[in-house]
């Protein structure tokens, strides 16, 4: 499989103003710090991590909703950082986003038809019968009835609104869709419907998905590969099977061990690792490996030197000093 998107050294530092009026100081908040990874055409890459680890920021960087501080993004063979407004507009049609909050993601003053049609109008369509037919097709594809078109967002439930959001994202026939926690705000029963819908649409339209979530079981269900993020860095990335069976990074191990086992026979099997403390502040990240403050296996090297994300031949990459120095 070829890579649809390649990010290299991708970095976003937000400037946080602090200090008094006279002694203004700005501290960089390292939301995303030198991230390298790629998304293959047609796959679903799951991106997991704790709240505040920068996964949403990373998703928005990739589709240039946020300007990166440094680094490059190659999308479909084209460098898309530093494109001017006109060039960027045509690239945008190929990459769309689905948001977490189905209430904030739809303009309350527009009908569903207007919401789904807007991307078409932006890209030169006229608001005529052809555009309306396209919108109707899209609504049918996401499982909404035709009469949903003339209604306003407040008339729908959360799951239905999420379907409208999906229709809006897909109406331009994008290659890549960033799903920013698309099911986190929904009821569990509705979550399953939306996840299944995304999978159906993916195979039907040949989509590539970046699926951001903090729920490991949802990610396990939908992803082909999984990337784990901690404090602005990707610490481990691999295919789903390997990462859930044999995680290499201590943080990934702790995350997976924290998922409750449904099978009572498996419960209590394998030592449960508890992580001590909270995620450190991205304003003042720890030296060396960012995880060393909470890592049960930390050695002196971890405090002084940040491990690079190193891959093996089977595509399993991990940013940890330990696998090299010690068998886990």
């Amino acid at each position, binding site marked *: 499989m070829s890579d649809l998107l390649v990010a290299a050294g991708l970095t976003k530092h937000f400037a946080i103003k602090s200090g008094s009026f006279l002694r203004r100081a700005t501290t960089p908040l390292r939301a995303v710090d030198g991230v390298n990874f790629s998304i293959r055409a047609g796959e679903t890459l799951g991106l997991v991590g704790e709240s505040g680890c920068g996964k949403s920021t990373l998703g928005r960087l990739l589709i240039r909703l946020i300007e990166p501080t440094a680094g490059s993004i190659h999308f479909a063979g084209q460098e898309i950082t530093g494109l001017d407004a006109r060039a960027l507009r045509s690239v*945008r049609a190929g990459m769309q986003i689905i948001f977490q909050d189905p209430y904030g993601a739809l*303009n309350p*003053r527009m009908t569903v038809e207007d919401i789904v049609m*807007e*991307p078409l109008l932006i890209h030169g369509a006229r608001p005529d019968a052809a555009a309306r037919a396209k919108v109707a097709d899209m609504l049918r594809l996401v499982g*909404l009835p035709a009469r949903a078109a003339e209604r306003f967002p407040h008339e729908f439930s959360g799951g239905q609104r999420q379907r409208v*959001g999906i229709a809006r994202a897909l109406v331009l026939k994008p290659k890549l869709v960033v799903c920013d926690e698309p099911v986190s705000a929904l009821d569990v029963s509705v979550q399953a419907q939306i996840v299944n819908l995304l999978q159906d649409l993916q195979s039907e339209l040949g989509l590539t998905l970046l699926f951001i979530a903090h729920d490991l079981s949802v990610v396990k269900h939908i992803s082909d590969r999984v990337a784990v993020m901690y404090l602005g860095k990707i610490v481990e990335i691999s295919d789903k099977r390997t990462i859930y069976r044999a995680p290499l990074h201590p943080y990934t191990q702790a995350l997976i061990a924290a998922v409750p086992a449904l099978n009572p026979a498996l419960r209590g099997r394998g030592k449960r690792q508890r992580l001590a403390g909270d995620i450190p502040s991205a304003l003042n990240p720890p030296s060396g490996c960012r995880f060393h403050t909470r890592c049960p296996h930390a050695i002196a090297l971890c405090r002084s030197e940040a491990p690079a994300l190193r891959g093996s031949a089977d595509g399993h990459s991990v940013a940890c000093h330990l696998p090299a120095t010690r068998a886990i």
Partner: protein
Amino acid sequence: MAPAEAVEEAVPHVRQHPLRATLRRLFRHRLFVMGLCLFGIIVLAGVLAPWITDVDPTKLSMRNKFRPPSSDFVFGTDNFGRSLWSRVIWGAQLSMIIGGSVVALNAVFGTLIGAAAGYFPRIDNALMRFNDALMAFPAILLAIGITAVLGPSTANAILALAIVYIPRTARIVRASVIVLREMEYVQAAIAAGAGHWRILRHHILPNAMAPLIVQLSFLFAYAVLSEATLSFLGLGAVPPTPTWGNIMAEGRQYMTDSPWIITIPGVALMITVLGLNLLGDGLRDVLDPRLRIQQ
């Protein structure tokens, strides 16, 4: 897709346009209806002025001076024997014209300045510091200062009041725009490739309307009140053009012997301001319920 049927059932059949729902809630709000009636009386009086008054409001009649309200002179006459009925009704028209003009100027320029400052962070600081400088002056003092420089006239009173109140309106619009700019539907529009103009026009301004409409209804009351103050001080429309302010200024000297001269325009002013405030409260409760908690 399997779940389509289940979803089909759940989409409501009864359509309700948001505008109609809002109107229905407004007309169920008792104080709003009361305010609308009070304000409606004044607006109607102003609109119908040429038909409901028969005497020229500037026509002197020394024989009839200081007549108390009676069947001949509904509101009595003033010190020159002019019919107060005519003067107060024509004064209502002028108040409505001035109030309406100030509100219209605020709606246009307050929105423009507020939206520009809220949406483009680069010019925010410059615009808002200028705004703050204007807002630092007490409203009526600034209005007096501007009319004193420009000279007393109806147009100058409108201009002065617009300059005084536009910074306040701009602040309110800016605050809404800053909140709305971060909404996810705006992010979605950016992701789809929408330009600034489309985002402002379709996504931000329509959603910023509620607090603006509430503000403008209160502003109408302030503008009418301030205009009365200006013309009371001789800085509004030039006599003999009747305004509530200058009728009261002239009636002040005869307050003890002929109290109706100052009372009647005063009551008219009170009805206007009370009506507009009730109307504004109603609009606020219905359009923007969050504001009620804050105030």
